[in-house]
């Protein structure tokens, strides 16, 4: 990179070739107001707010698009520039409805959630010099997650760019010309009926009040919230998040680092951005016990603990079974394992342990995200990646969009991914493996083929994946089976999947640790297994509770600090976003109380965690 010397407001500034005036100025500590510019997206040059004077150019130039050149002399704050900016701001403010006092995002300078309003304060707009023609533009509320109010849109195109450049879903574009221009979904559908995957990236980058969340509304300004930086552990991709929290309530979740350089472009998927805000299940808020007449009654925390101890003492270790969610922090998983070992219990498994046992018997080369991005042929087998691992879906779309990769989908169900594939092969659930033969030759011929296996239902089905993995093994095709929960990889690595092969569970005690997720049991299937007694620990009311003898409230992942092993292999520590209620414990907190009472001695998990 060659060095470029220029002058900004008389000061010598050193930049590198290819930088824009804006980048060079910001790096040197100068501030230039911008609106359509976003540092995670390509330059657009539409709002014209960032204009500066460059010696030798009769017109003002937009600093966000003009590259620096040697010897350039830039003035960023002359009267001419300030006048022009104010004028342009006036035009933008009077174009549609920007009566700020009626807007959800509006606030005082320090508080506003609206970039447009902030810029207006900065260039000191006190009144509108032009008549305001408030045309009635549509308000689209059909998206399940956000509202699009075209009356507040400034046509900056950030949403369009993020949807095509980062999410690579290309739902949004401009339609119509001139002052009739409108942001459109699929050139004119309601958002709710369009190809939109509700990832919310557009909403996050909107600098005005045009796109806003259906869940964050009226909960308070982001500037008044506590801001917690962590990541989303839900699916194992581990996107970085900024969480805005007020009164122990999440107001909004944003992807962090929507800036150049991040492989994921700072996006989130629908589950990550809106999942916690859309949660409708009820929490287990109190311990419950079954009384002598078989009825469930609320109990004190201590009573429930005592009952659990009593049960654990009453069964011999070979009559105790642990069934655990893999979507728990590694600390919990490791503690559960240590606890079981100390008790002498051998039958311990996660709900997705079967998948682990299916996968370890094959030795195929593993694909990573770069492999997907550089692939020329992607075979996506199984469930809906948009719903399960949305951001991995964006890598596939980027490969298709930017590199012309071919996507073949083999799946029993429709998905919003289908429109990116050249071939969608509908197969009956369970027979995904039967078609391998038909694609073998094509895959072998490709230069960088990648196979992606999606969905717990698929990975559990040995028959369906066997043919794919055997083929991958034999032809050394890079393959990525996507884990069903955000910490499956840690659970498997910790070896919590040693289910005994006995076919009867009668006469046994089941310790069910659910964490956040519904177990893979149904009340009927659980009843059929015939456990004699059940201790259930979990965050949410679960249909299985009917069969339990003791129910203990657990923390949700949002409240539980801990470590996760991501699909990328990275091991990350999650910072809790919310505070838990008093009686809601993490599995390790609960078990350590039980371990004390049972005099199991110290359970050491540190070495297990570092081995991840």
């Amino acid at each position, binding site marked *: 990179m060659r060095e470029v010397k220029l002058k900004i407001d008389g000061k010598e500034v050193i930049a590198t070739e290819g930088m824009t005036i804006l980048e060079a100025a910001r790096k040197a500590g100068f501030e230039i107001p911008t609106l359509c510019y976003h540092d995670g997206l390509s330059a657009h*040059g539409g709002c014209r707010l960032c204009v500066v004077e460059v010696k030798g150019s009769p017109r003002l130039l937009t600093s966000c698009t003009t590259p620096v050149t040697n010897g350039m002399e830039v003035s960023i704050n002359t009267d001419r520039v300030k006048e022009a900016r104010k004028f342009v701001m006036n035009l933008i403010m009077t174009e549609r409805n920007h009566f700020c006092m009626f807007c959800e995002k509006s606030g005082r300078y320090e508080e506003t959630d609206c970039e447009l309003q902030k810029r207006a304060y900065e260039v000191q707009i006190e009144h509108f010099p032009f008549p305001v023609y408030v045309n009635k533009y549509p308000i689209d509320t059909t998206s399940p997650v956000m509202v699009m109010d075209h009356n507040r849109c400034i046509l900056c195109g950030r949403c369009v760019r993020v949807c095509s450049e980062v999410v690579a879903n290309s739902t949004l574009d401009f339609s119509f010309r*001139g002052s009739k*221009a409108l942001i459109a979904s699929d050139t004119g559908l309601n958002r709710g009926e369009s190809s939109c995957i509700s990832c919310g990236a557009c909403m996050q980058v909107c600098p005005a009040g045009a796109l806003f969340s259906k869940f964050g509304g009226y909960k308070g300004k982001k500037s008044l919230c506590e801001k917690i930086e962590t990541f989303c552990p839900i699916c194992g991709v581990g996107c970085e998040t900024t969480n805005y929290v007020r009164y122990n309530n999440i107001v909004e979740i944003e992807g962090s680092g929507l800036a150049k350089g991040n492989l994921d472009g700072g996006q989130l998927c629908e589950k990550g951005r809106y999942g916690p805000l859309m949660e409708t299940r009820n929490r287990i808020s109190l311990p419950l016990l079954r009384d002598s007449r078989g009825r469930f009654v609320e109990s004190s925390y201590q009573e429930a603990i005592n009952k659990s101890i009593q049960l654990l003492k009453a069964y011999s270790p070979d009559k105790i079974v642990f069934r655990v969610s893999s979507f728990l922090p590694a600390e919990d998983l490791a503690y559960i394992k240590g606890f079981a070992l100390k008790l002498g219990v051998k039958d311990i498994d996660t709900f997705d342990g079967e998948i682990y046992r299916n996968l370890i018997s094959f030795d195929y080369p593993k694909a990573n995200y770069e492999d997907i991005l550089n692939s020329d042929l992607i075979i996506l087998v199984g469930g809906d990646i948009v719903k399960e691992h949305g951001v991995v879906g964006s890598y596939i779309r980027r490969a298709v969009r930017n590199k012309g990769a071919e996507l073949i989908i083999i799946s029993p169900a429709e998905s919003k991914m289908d429109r990116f594939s050249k071939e969608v092969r509908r197969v009956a659930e369970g027979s995904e493996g039967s078609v391998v033969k038909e694609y073998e030759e094509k895959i072998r011929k490709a230069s960088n083929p990648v196979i992606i296996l999606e969905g717990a239902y698929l990975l559990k089905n040995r028959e369906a994946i066997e043919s794919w993995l055997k083929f991958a093994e034999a032809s050394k095709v890079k393959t990525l089976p996507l884990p069903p929960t955000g910490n499956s990889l840690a659970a498997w690595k910790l070896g919590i999947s040693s289910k005994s092969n006995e076919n009867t569970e009668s006469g046994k005690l089941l310790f069910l640790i659910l964490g956040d997720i519904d177990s893979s049991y149904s009340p009927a299937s659980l009843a059929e297994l015939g456990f004699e007694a059940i201790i259930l620990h979990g965050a949410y009311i679960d249909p299985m509770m009917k069969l339990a003898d003791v129910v203990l409230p657990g923390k949700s992942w949002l409240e539980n600090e801990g470590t996760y092993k991501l699909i990328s292999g990275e091991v990350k520590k999650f910072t809790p976003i919310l505070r838990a209620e008093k009686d809601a414990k993490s599995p390790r907190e609960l078990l350590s109380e039980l371990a004390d009472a049972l005099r199991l001695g110290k359970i050491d998990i540190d070495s297990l965690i570092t081995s991840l």
Partner: protein
Amino acid sequence: MRVRSLDDLKAIAQRALEKLCGRRIRIAVGLATCGIATGAEEVYSAFLKGIESLKRDILLTKVGCIGYCREEPIVNVVIPGKALLLLSRVRPEDASEILKNLIDGDVPREKIVCRVKEWDHLLEKIHYGDGFTDVSLYEDTPFFKHQRKIVLRNAGIINPEDIEEYIAVGGYRSLYKALTEMTPEMVIEEVKRSGLRGRGGAGFPTGLKWEITAKSESDERYIICNADEGDPGAYMNRNEMESDPHSLIEGMIIGGYAIGAKEGIIYVRAEYPLAISRLQIAIEQSRRYGLLGENIFGTDFSFDIRIVKGAGAFVCGEETAMIASIEGETGRPRPRPPFPAEKGLWGKPTNINNVETWCNIPVIVYKGGEWFSKIGTKNNTGTKVFSLVGEVQRVGLVEVPLGTSLKRIVYDIGNGCPDGLKVKAVQIGGPSGGCIPEGLLDIPVDYESLKEVGSIMGSGGMVVMSERTSMVETAAFFVSFTSEESCGKCAPCREGLKQMLNILNKILMGKGSPSDLELLKELSETIKTTSLCGLGQTAPNPVLTTIKYFKEEYEELIKRYD
């Protein structure tokens, strides 16, 4: 048959000359869009029927437009050995009478506009002959007298759907010369020497643009012909393509050779179906003759052309929007730099020129840059085609040397306004041009002089306005056009033009206030200095020039309210 040598070309020329001025009577009907609009197709059919019933060996053919649109349908006839005659306003019912006369070696006098003894196709001259000495000569006719045809050298004379006729008048000889006698650098040097500037509006030196594109580091390069002609009332490019498509194609092949491109694209308005079909025919023919495609003239230079139909938006005439449109995106301008010459179509260096610019190339290569540079003035060499329209008596397409005064065009060629009205102003440069008052019509038509008076050359639209025209209405008309056509990408153009239009309409309704003029000027300045592309940067010109030269009209309307 594939053309491989100069001798091949000459043989074809010899053969085709027989069609142009051979032993048969030739009747050529002007079948460009302007002729067709006035019924030229019916005239053609009438001749066809007449000839069939006469059972005589008469050659009936179609040609493009010679530019005298007011006199359409125009038919030209050649009786072997005699002068070519231009007949005007020919009706189908005239056909039999004309045919009868022709067989007798005569033509009805009242139909004749003028006679042509010899036509200079620049690369070749065709001598028709004498006769009809009582009829005025082409070069003495007021409409043609001050014109100089370089771009339109073949228009209206040869059949645009017959490559052989183009070859007969010297076609593809320039290409042969460039490919066999010149290096690409020499071609660029010749174009630079000619002083040719882009005819699409901005007047950027063509040779220099070629050189920048040719020197941009890349494995691939593209050239594009801008045929998106969107200015209301302008039809120069349409006529050039309909009348002489091979001239454009030859220019582009030479350009491809000079610049190092293998592919050329003609981006043409979908509203020009006849131009598109003639281009398609011409491209097909050139391929068949080996003049397009692999190994042209047996050299190792290969080049092909494809047509892309425009999406219908005016702004697609802007280079970067055009590139976006060709790439399959919405046609919206992109920030420059990077300039297309560095990073254009598919990110590769791309050279875009207007139809007319390309049409000049074969002549420059053949006659030399030196020859070309002597036409016009020092910094404005060559000619420019204008569509002279509006309230002017002789409506038509005129080609004059740059530097010709506006007076000469409006009065001597156009014969002023009809009905004895006085000329009030001339609007030049399309919707973003300026209105030049009658008092300034002495200025020469060149890029700099027009800019000085607040207008631009544009692509050649010239609208004459009489004393009964309201200049405020005119300004409002153009702003409503640009406001409609603004792509909406950048705020000043999108919103500023809308505000300007609202103010103008307010003034027109008699509700304006004195401060509105200041606001209009302020808006104009901001839109000009801050807009992204040429559309916004020039759209306020009609308002600024009318306020400058016709302020009293605004004040008059405003006073009415006070």
